[in-house]
């Protein structure tokens, strides 16, 4: 099996990352490591990536075709074995040392930034580098798409505190929060959203959710998703809508720690 991600995966990740320099308040080690590995995975053409921590350069590396090809600059806090690799083309033999360095430098609770520039010299094609999947495994992480079997159920679990109701195709809406009564108007609206021709479903791309605040009750918001050919919906407090939408958007980009 190859370590190279498919071109579709690389293009999709590159599109997701946009064009600005990236930054992230990484609360956890998983977020911090996922941020750097995502940046590496998004490099189609060779790029030099400078990772800043709290505005100060911490780590400089080179990536191409979704692989980490060289470590260029590491701080004194990095393990000596990784600092010794500085400037050398990387192979899977160095996987362990590189993963240990990333684990040391990316403990979480960091304000990270990634700047991308063209490399001073092209990478050596004879040394393809280390794949992001291998680094994830070595760091004890699982890509979110593999770790989360049912994204919808995962979202419902994460949004439990602000969840008011859930509606699945062909079933009556289920009230989740006993304190927020589902009005007859809301029930009718949910049924109209789920019944053919299901207004709104054509707006959804794969794995997208459409969240919107309700005309009839501005304190409530609906999230509409596609379940195969049919839509399904959740009702949440409107004040939590942006946070739940942000959680859903980030879900594919934060790896999950493997169970010990």
């Amino acid at each position: 099996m190859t370590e190279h991600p498919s071109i579709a995966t690389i293009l999709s990740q590159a599109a997701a990352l946009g064009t600005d320099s990236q930054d992230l308040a990484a609360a956890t080690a998983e977020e911090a490591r996922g941020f750097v590995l995502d940046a590496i995975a998004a490099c189609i053409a060779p790029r030099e990536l400078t990772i800043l921590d709290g505005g100060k350069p911490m780590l400089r590396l080179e990536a191409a075709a979704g692989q980490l090809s060289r470590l260029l600059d590491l701080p004194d806090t990095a393990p000596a074995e990784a600092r010794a690799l500085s400037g050398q083309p990387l192979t899977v033999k160095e996987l362990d040392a590189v993963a240990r360095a990333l684990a040391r430098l990316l403990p979480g609770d960091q304000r990270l930034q990634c700047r991308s520039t063209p490399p001073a010299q092209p990478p050596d094609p004879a040394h393809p580098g280390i794949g992001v999947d291998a680094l994830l495994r070595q760091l004890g992480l699982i890509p979110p798409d593999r770790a989360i079997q049912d994204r919808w159920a995962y979202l419902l679990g994460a949004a439990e505190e602000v969840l008011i109701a859930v509606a699945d195709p062909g079933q009556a809406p289920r009230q989740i929060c006993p304190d927020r009564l589902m009005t007859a108007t809301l029930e009718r609206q949910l049924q109209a959203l789920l019944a053919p021709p299901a207004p709104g479903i054509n707006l959804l791309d794969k794995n997208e959710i459409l969240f919107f605040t309700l005309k009839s009750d501005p304190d409530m918001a609906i999230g509409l998703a596609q379940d195969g050919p049919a839509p399904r919906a959740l009702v949440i407090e409107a004040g939590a809508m942006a946070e739940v939408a942000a959680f859903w958007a980030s879900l594919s980009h934060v790896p999950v720690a493997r169970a010990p």
Partner: protein
Amino acid sequence: MTRDDLARFRAGFAHCELVMLADTAAGTVLTFDSAIHQGQERLDDLCATACALFRSDLPARGMAVLSGPRGSRLFLQMPRDPTEVICAVLGPRADLPAICVAAGRLGDTENMT
């Protein structure tokens, strides 16, 4: 609201690729600011989505967000004239809650001027 207003707004947030003001009554783009050049088709698509959200059978009013692995598209109706909608294209790691609050303020400011 001018292009400069949108540019200042966009500059305040990482992962904010594009901000646009659409007139959903006429189905036209009024002004926009973006990180890179955007083709008219892309802007028209965003405008058509705003129209579909707020001028259709959907029981939506105020704010809508289309959110997925490639990021989010935010749509906010202006309080003064709900036919005008602020649209923003955001990366998956954008601070969506802060951007929503700021977009609301931008709409409120416009309301006062």
